Structure formats: C-alpha cells, structure tokens
C-alpha cells in the first residue's frame, strides 16, 4: 500500500513510540492501563492525521492527546480494546524495574499523589518528559504565560504539601544539577 498517509503515520509511530509508552508507564499504576493509553493515543493520532503537526511538534501534540486519553481513562470512559492487549507484555517489562525506593522517596511519592491532577501533570512534564515551558504550552494548548503561572503554583503547592507531611529534605537528597543557581 503506497499510501503517504500510512507512511507518515508509521514514521511518527516509530519516532515517538518510546516516548509515549514512557509517558503512559510513568503515569499508570498497571501495565494494562498503560497499554490502553498508548493504544488509544495512537488510534486517535491515526484518525486525526490531518491535525498532526510536522517534526518534533508531533511528540508534543501526542503528549496532549495522551493527556486527554489518560483523563478519560481515569473517569472510566475508555473500555479495554482487544488491540491494547497486544502491548501488555511489553509494558509489564517496563514495570519490572521499580523506581528507587526508600522511606524518603516513598513519602515524596505519597505527597505527590495527593496533588491535584493538573499540578502533577505539569510537574511531570518538566521533571519526567524534560519539556520546557514553550513545549508544555504547545502540548497542552495554553499560553506560555499560563504555563509559567500554573507551574509556579504547582511547585508552591507541592512544597507546602511536603512541609505539611513533614518531609524534610537533607542536602544530599536534593541531587542538584551542576551549574544551577538557587
């Protein structure tokens, strides 16, 4: 099938599959849920190929789609489809290597989970996907200024929640990147 649409989709799929699966696995508690998110996200992308932007922006656009899919999934609006089962095994592998654990990290993770959904998403896009403000603005379809303000608020709420939960960070645990001024 010499379909340019198909060729483009396959290229985008190859290019972004690793990032989108990582996105889903970082946010879902079970491999099955992650498989659902990935399958639904790419299904929507295939249906909306006309809207898919070129180049690197495609990844940001897919993050935006995945974000909506995730929200729908949490509301129980997405039913398991046969096609996502195919991915289960691969997703399970990603769940095998648990993130670092420790009393302090567990406490931080607990506080993080208590934050509003939008806060968690913004902080995650920075910390886990490594996006800057412009990229987040593109992915979420909001202005950069809105991202700046919301991110500021999310950080503040997280800090406060950590203090309230009695999580005090020792200097060694801060893992400050080199060259960063506080």
């Amino acid at each position, binding site marked *: 099938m010499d379909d340019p*649409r*198909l060729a483009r*989709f*396959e290229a985008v*799929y*190859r290019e972004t*599959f*690793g*990032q989108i*699966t*990582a996105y*889903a*696995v*970082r946010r879902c508690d079970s491999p099955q849920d992650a498989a659902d998110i*990935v*399958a639904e996200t*790419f*299904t929507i992308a*295939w*249906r*909306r190929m006309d809207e898919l932007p070129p180049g690197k922006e495609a990844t940001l656009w897919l993050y*935006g789609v995945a974000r*909506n899919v995730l*929200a*729908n999934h949490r509301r129980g609006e997405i039913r398991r489809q046969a*096609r996502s089962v*195919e*991915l289960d*095994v*691969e*997703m399970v*592998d*990603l*769940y095998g290597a648990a*993130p670092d654990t420790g009393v302090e990290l567990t406490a*931080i993770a607990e506080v*993080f989970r208590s934050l509003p*959904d*939008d806060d968690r998403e913004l*902080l*995650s896009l*920075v*910390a*886990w*996907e*490594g996006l*800057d403000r412009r990229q987040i603005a593109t992915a*979420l379809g*909001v*202005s950069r200024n*809105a991202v700046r*303000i*919301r991110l500021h608020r999310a*950080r503040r709420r997280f800090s406060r929640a950590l203090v309230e939960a009695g999580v005090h*960070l020792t200097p060694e645990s*801060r*893992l400050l*990147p080199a060259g*960063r001024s*506080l």
Partner: protein
Amino acid sequence: MKHIDEIETMMRPLARVAPGRSGGSPSGAGARTLLASITSEDPGTAVATPRRVQRYGPRRLVLGLAAAAVVATGIVVDPSLLRNGHSVSAAYAVTKDSDGIVYIQVRDFRDAAGLRKRLRELGVPAIVDHVPQGQMCRGPRATPMEDIPSGLYSVPENIPGERNGWQMRIDTKLFEPGQTFVWTITDLPGGGSSTSTILMKDPVAPCVLVPDDTPKMKEADSKVRRATRKGGSLAGYRVDEKTVGEVLPEIEKRGLKAVYLIMAIPPGNPGGFGELRTQEKPVGKDWVVWEAEDVTSGVVRLLVTDKRYDKNPVYGGPRDNVIRD
C-alpha cells in the same frame, strides 16, 4: 532542562521509566501488532462519528470580535448601589480579623487617599484613585494578573439594610509579593460612582487623568453578553482556556448555575464554531472552557469543548488579542 527546579529534580527518581529513557521499542512484537491493528482501520469512517452535526459558521466569531469594543475593567459595582443620598456614619470602614481577612465597607468615595492609607495599614497592597466624571486614568497602568487566587477577594455586594455603599472581603494571606490591588473610583453622570478593583503586577503607574474616550458600552447582540464583562456575573474572573473543573468552584462561589454549550469546531480550528447543543447535564471536569455568557439572572452558559485546541475558537486566537478586561 534550563527551567528545571529543585522540585522537579526531587521528582525525577519517582519516574518508573527514568527521565530521558525510552519506554517500549517500536520494533517489539506487541508494538508492531498494534501498529498493524490501528492502520487497518479506515481513518475516514472513524472521524465521521463525532462530527455528525456540522453547523459551523462565522456567526459566533463575529460576535466575539464585536465585543472588543467593550473595555471591561475588573469588578464594577452597579452605580445604583453607590448613589450618595443619605448622610452615613463613616466614609469607609476597614477592619481585619485574626485570620488576615480584611472587611471593607465603603459609603463615600471621595476620600481615596484615606482609604488607601487604611488598606495599606491592614496589609492590603492597594492603590486607590478617585476620578472625576468624564475622565479616566491613562492606561495601561500595569499588567493585570491573569490568574487571581481563588478566595483572594469577594465580589462587592450590598451592605445589608443600607441603600448606599458596598462591602467586600479580602484575604490578605493570598497576596503575593509584586501584586497591587488597583482601585479606581469614578464619578458617573447622575451622581453615582463606580469602583473597579483590578489585581495588577507591579510596577503600577500613577493615575494620570485624561479625558475618557473609551468607546461606550455596546455589543453586537444584546442577547449574548460575556459574563466576565464589567458588571457581568463573572466580572473580574477569567474563564478562557481553563478547565471546567477550574471554573466551577468560582461559579458556585458566586451562587450561579452553569449550563454548557457544546461547541463544534471545524476541521483545522480556523476560528469560529458551531453549536452542537446546550445542556444542563455536567460535562467532564477536564473539558475546556473558552468563554462564558450571561443567559438569565443567575445562569451562566459556558462555551466548552471536550479537548484543548491550539487556539481559542471563539476569538480565532488568544482572547487577549480581542478582549481587554
């Protein structure tokens, strides 16, 4: 990673797939089966379902652009509330309780300097200016804050049992450094006054009086009125680009009821939209609000879509390009 903060650095070890690492491989068996399954679907038929009602057109966009003539400014109290007639006990009363909540009652609007001093004493970073009829402060004096913290201040309301004056409450704990409450008290023809209260970013320029040449209030269609305009039910509050979940608490706080206009967005979102339906049934909290309109007293219609678009369909781009609040 230039913007990364300490918070995010701390979060990095929480990621199940380490930041910078890839998740699954597209060449794995599952990934290839999924790809084949998705692309075996005819994309054309799949798209048809959500777009079955197509009533697109520029109508609403025209309304949005026409509304640009209206210059809305934060909260403005109905001048009928403010008419001076009776002598009253005090020009204003400002008190603060132990929780940092400041209560303000204003009955006479001429002593701007005194009111400003009193507010500052009680921790409200306010600038108060009094503007004679037919004049205005030369704008813009500062950039208005985009997102005002929920609960920072209440909508001005009547003082119970009195015909004149208004009252409001301000939570001084919610002010952040670099913010100033800019109050402008303007005399109106007929003896009333209006007060606009806008939270702005420092620095705020002093009020330089100039003739008031702002276009008079006019809207293309009197049946459609933005709820966020001055005097509207959501005056002083921005709804555009927020989620339904973010906007609803403000609507409830103001004692309003929401109905939802489900928008139909043409392919490519060129600006403008159609109306699928208007419903009372709540939509998902993650739906996106693009504008709010006053329907009848106490009812606000939210213009919503089930997902985010790259630009505001009501205005064909950022609302700020069209509307100045």
